[in-house]
């Protein structure tokens, strides 16, 4: 979740051939809501409720907002912080993911960005600088006993890896509960549908082709969600090796041989997003991991 201020919080509602489209920006991405039914007033209020929820989540969990719960945690400098239920749920979830990935998915690994800049260049960190930062990384170093979180000094949490997908799921529930359903919520490529569309067999979603010049895959989505983890813009290239921006919190270095991008279809956007992230963290075993899960995925290397 990036983006510095609350500027750019416009909301656009346009009529489509069938239904309505709402557009706004949240969590550093262009966000789109498609609704098949309802008249303009109802569609507008549903879209407004969705945008409000997306911005609420952004304001509450973005590490760029001064004074929100994440900021309080990140500036506590070793002191204990008491959190509310929603934050506690996310921290419990992050703990499960930490265990599930044998420590590779770690919300405290964000500080490694201080030594790594994934700008497509070949500038890797100075020796020793990674190790210096590593002492501030490790969810096992944090003490999380709901509802109290106590990070070590100079440790920070970053919920960017969970936040967007979580927001999509919260927002698709708003669609499902409205009279404007069926609908689709798409936050920068992480999307979910409330159900099959009425006039066609399925929602059509294009996923980038596996090779740069191969055709996009068109996916028929009737239920569930799609999420993509990828390094399209954020990588380093040095000595013929591509270093993805997915860092191993244990070593502080990028996971070797991670795919360029992984797109996963799952029941919810959160599951799709986490599965694609876990797949990336498997490096060269990404496809093997995804096949064993028995889910639909597209892996680009």
């Amino acid at each position, binding site marked *: 979740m990036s983006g510095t201020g609350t500027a750019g919080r416009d909301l656009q509602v346009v009529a489509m051939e069938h239904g309505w489209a709402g557009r706004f920006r949240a969590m550093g991405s262009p966000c789109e809501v498609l609704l098949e039914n309802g008249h303009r007033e109802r569609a507008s209020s549903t879209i407004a409720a969705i945008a409000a929820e997306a911005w609420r989540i952004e304001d509450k969990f973005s590490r760029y907002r001064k004074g929100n719960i994440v900021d309080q945690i990140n500036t506590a400098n070793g002191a204990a912080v008491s959190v509310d239920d929603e934050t506690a749920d996310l921290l419990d979830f992050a703990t499960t993911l930490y265990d599930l990935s044998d420590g590779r998915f770690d919300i405290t690994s964000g500080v490694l960005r201080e030594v790594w800049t994934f700008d497509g260049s070949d500038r890797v960190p100075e020796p020793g600088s990674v190790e210096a930062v590593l002492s501030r990384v490790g969810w096992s170093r944090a003490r999380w006993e709901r509802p109290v979180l106590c990070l070590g000094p100079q440790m920070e949490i970053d919920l960017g890896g969970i936040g967007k997908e979580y927001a999509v799921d919260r927002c698709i529930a708003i669609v499902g509960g409205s009279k404007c359903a069926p609908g689709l919520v798409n936050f920068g490529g992480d999307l979910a549908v409330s159900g099959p569309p009425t006039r066609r067999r399925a929602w059509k979603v294009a996923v980038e082709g596996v090779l740069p010049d191969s055709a996009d895959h068109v996916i*028929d989505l009737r239920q569930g969600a799609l999420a993509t983890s990828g390094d399209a813009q954020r990588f380093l290239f040095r000595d013929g090796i591509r270093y993805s921006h997915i860092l191993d919190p244990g070593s502080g270095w990028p996971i070797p041989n991670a795919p360029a991008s992984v797109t996963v279809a799952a029941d919810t956007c959160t599951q799709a997003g986490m599965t694609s992230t876990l797949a990336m963290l498997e490096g060269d075993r990404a496809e093997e991991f995804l096949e064993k899960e028995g889910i639909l995925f597209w892996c680009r290397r």
Partner: protein
Amino acid sequence: MAAADAGVTDMSKSSRKNDRSVSVTLAAATCALLGTGVPAPVDAQEEPKWDFNTSLLYYGEDGDRVQDASLKSIIRRLFADDKSLSIGFTVDALTGATPSGAIRQDTAQTFTRPSGNSAYSVPAGDLPLDDTFRDTRVALTANWQQPAGEKGLLSIGMSTSKEYDYFHLGLNANYAHAFNNRNTTLSAGIAMASDSIEPVGGAPTPLSAMLDVGDVSNRNGDQDKDVMDVVFGVSQVISRDLVMQVNYSYSYSDGYLNNPYKVLSLVDGDTGDTLPRTTPLPPDGGPSGQFLFENRPDERTQHSLYTQAKYNMDGKVLDLSYRYMTDDWEIDSHTVDVRYRWPIGSRSYLEPHVRFYTQSEAEFYRLSLDSSQELPAFASSDYRLGNFDAITAGLKYGWKTRSGNDMSLRVEWYTQSGTVPGDQLIGNQTGRDNYPDLNALIVQFSYRFSR
């Protein structure tokens, strides 16, 4: 050194949980996070351009009667804008015998084969079955479907089939229109067919006698038949869980409607036994008694009313249908069909099926022909035109493979039991098992996948 070692993540040594449990744990964790209950299972697939639906069928009647092995396939190519082209082909390999229409006797009987080239014999007490046919049938269908405006759907198609003694060619068209927020659909369709019957040996003159081997003097070559079917239907969404449909069909057939191979036994007015032949049996063989080829009217008009309901009961689906048919041959029939689809987990289902069918006999249905009475204009002892009840009972098991393809296996038992109207039984026929009851096993395996 130590730092470098610590930095290496040795994946082979890390405690690799069973990967399958990752998605299960993740699902549970997500459930806890979102707090919205178990989500509906994802339904996503690469936009299919092709849809392949294939099945292998075995149909087998007991008592050395008809057995059929069939391969059927429908290949569908999907185009943009919801247009599609379907090509279907079916190959049937048929063997086995079928009742010839003659009645059982307490003595052995012989009959001339339809080709006129040889004869076959039937032991005393047995139902006369003609096993001449080992036939292969090939059928081809093509169908184009496309939306017509916002709410319409147009479909046009053709069908053709060929077997040793039969050729069919047909065209059909159907239009459906959605109303009332897509809750109501009205449809109308028409099919026209032109068929040729090319009986082995030639079509016999109706009500003429079965002749000796080598004698084809009563044969008349090939015949034609035209059929027109019209269907009008309404389908209606009743509630979130219930949809119903009602169809009215009209069918008109015109031309050669006889079965060229079926005969009736000409019997004595008192004993009910088949009249013996009047001349000695020639060396090449021939019929042991007097048999006449059947005759049906050269027109038939049928009306049907069909209604179906599909009802969702908490994930299980009940499919109930009823059809009433009546025609100008005085046949009336009722069909009740019940299916219940019971999902097992998210990937498979069990579907028991029961069908009840009953029909009354055609006006010209006769078990045999009474030689002491005047011959009727039309007569047939074909069991398919008689008075019978039939029951089908079966079970189907279907599953979705990991790659999202559908497979199913169904096993069904079909049984027919008929009765001859009491006033048709003469003498020794009473008390005999006259009606060729049918018991058949149906096994079908289907495989469907999209690409």
